[in-house]
């Protein structure tokens, strides 16, 4: 009997465990999922919490209960992995040997790595919505905010869901309009990138939206220090973001997306991760470079695509197949193409949809085919799609079912190639 140990019971770990459980008879393989807690958070839902449009309870379920029967759930922290000996050491002293290891422990936030970020202003005038506690605390702070300078700052890439900070700006604009105080709020988006988004066609669309909504864009800003407002009341001196090249952005309320790194145990596991704690893998097969019986997916890897739930979903299909091929002694399939698919909330009940992979940037057209959802265009339908997706997540994606019309390879039917070629020509000029 083979033993497959999966570290992390989030999106990637859960759906891979369920796919593998269906693929193997109970006598053929033991499948163990390890996670330090039993709270599976539907992370895309965190965006809505600060605006009172969702709450943490509504987006959290038991990790254990998302796993098929026959999958063992071990609730424990991970001390380290001994890759050479094929063993995982847990915090409670247990040692788990494995035939195959799947790393699915995602990314963690590292706010303490930015000077001043976790100082006296943290969770008082400086927040993040990337954690359940942060999103809930920010809701209270937004309710009390009657005007002033609100900045949204991405410290550095990579981050989970790179479009979420922009979505936050669009939803904040709507929120203040609805409260009748939009004219008293200065909204600024501060990014280390040289544009609102990295991909040209998408960047044009999203920059246009920022301009339309009166949101100021500050680019190539590498935050060195966060200084909290003195005293923390509205009459006190404002806070400041100071970049390494000594530019300053002042604020009354800051929403910061801290640095991200891999899970803590990765750096304690010799050879497993890179400098930031992400797992170097083959981008097509998702096999770890450190050893053939180690695989990784989702936010935990170093693949050059977005850290997004859709990526973990598409990777899960390829990875589960490759774990089986590996255990059968067959060659692996290098079939993950970097497929990423994101709904982008643009405010007032509308959303964009983008779809891309390692080689193809987001294009206009429709997804997954000509009669589908409009791509790169704000629409009511995409917003409803985003809201409906939460149910699909719990009931279709996590159980590891193939979701009709959403395959792991990026679809090209319904997309306008010409648009991309034009954009390419423009950006080359």
């Amino acid at each position: 009997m083979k033993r497959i140990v999966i570290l992390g019971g989030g999106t990637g770990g859960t759906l891979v465990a369920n796919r593998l459980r269906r693929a193997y008879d109970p006598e053929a393989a033991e499948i163990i999922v390890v996670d330090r807690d039993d709270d599976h958070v539907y992370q895309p839902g965190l965006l809505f919490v600060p605006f009172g449009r969702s709450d943490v309870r509504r987006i959290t379920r038991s990790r254990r209960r998302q796993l098929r029967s026959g999958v063992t759930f071990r609730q424990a922290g991970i001390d380290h992995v001994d890759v050479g000996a094929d063993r995982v050491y847990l915090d409670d002293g247990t040692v788990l040997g494995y035939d195959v290891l799947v790393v699915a422990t995602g990314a963690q936030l590292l706010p303490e790595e930015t000077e001043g970020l976790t100082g006296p202003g943290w969770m008082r005038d400086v927040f993040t919505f990337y954690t359940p506690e942060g999103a809930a605390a920010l809701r209270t702070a937004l309710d009390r905010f009657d005007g002033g300078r609100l900045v949204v700052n991405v410290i550095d890439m990579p981050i989970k869901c790179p479009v979420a900070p922009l979505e936050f700006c669009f939803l904040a604009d709507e929120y203040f309009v609805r409260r009748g105080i939009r004219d008293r709020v200065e909204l600024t988006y501060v990014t280390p990138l040289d544009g609102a988004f990295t991909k040209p066609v998408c960047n044009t669309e999203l920059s246009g939206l920022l301009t339309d909504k009166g949101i100021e864009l500050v680019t190539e800003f590498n935050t060195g220090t966060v200084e909290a407002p003195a005293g923390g009341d509205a009459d006190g001196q404002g806070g400041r973001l100071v970049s390494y090249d000594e530019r300053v952005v002042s604020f009354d309320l800051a929403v910061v997306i801290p640095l991200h790194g891999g899970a803590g145990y990765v750096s304690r596991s010799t050879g497993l991760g890179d400098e930031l704690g992400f797992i170097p893998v083959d981008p097509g097969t998702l096999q770890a470079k450190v050893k053939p019986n180690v695989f990784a997916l989702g936010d935990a890897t170093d693949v050059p695509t977005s850290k997004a739930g859709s990526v973990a979903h598409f990777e899960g299909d390829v990875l589960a197949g490759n774990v089986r091929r590996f255990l059968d002694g067959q060659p692996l399939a290098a079939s993950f193409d970097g497929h990423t698919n994101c709904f982008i909330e643009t405010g007032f009940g509308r959303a964009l949809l983008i779809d891309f992979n390692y080689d193809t940037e987001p294009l206009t057209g429709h997804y997954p085919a000509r009669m589908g959802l409009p791509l790169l265009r704000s629409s009511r339908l995409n917003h409803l799609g985003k809201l409906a997706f939460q149910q699909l997540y719990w009931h279709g994606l996590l159980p590891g079912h193939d979701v009709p019309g959403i395959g792991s390879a990026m679809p090209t039917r319904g997309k306008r190639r010409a648009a991309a070629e034009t954009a390419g020509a423009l950006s080359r000029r």
Partner: protein
Amino acid sequence: MPTATYGGHTVTVNDEGFLTDPSQWTQEMAAQIASAEGIDELTPRHWQVISFMRAEFQAKGTGPTVRVLGKTSGVSVKELYQLFPHGPAKTAAKIAGIPKPRGCI
């Protein structure tokens, strides 16, 4: 493809001025590229970063980001900005004759 000439050597560059073929680079070129980027003198600390960039590129096929440089080059992010005020990863990559670091998506 555009070209640039440093000390009599003609090299191919992309439209942002990054060398497209790192093997065309020579140490002598570094000072000239640096001066075009507003850095008048390359100190041993600059060279530590430049050599590190080239070694990383050889090993991994892409230059490191500022954050990774700060963690691994032996030069802190703060000092990196003092050495290369207009974006350390980008400027050091250009001077080191390697492509612009891919960064992240």
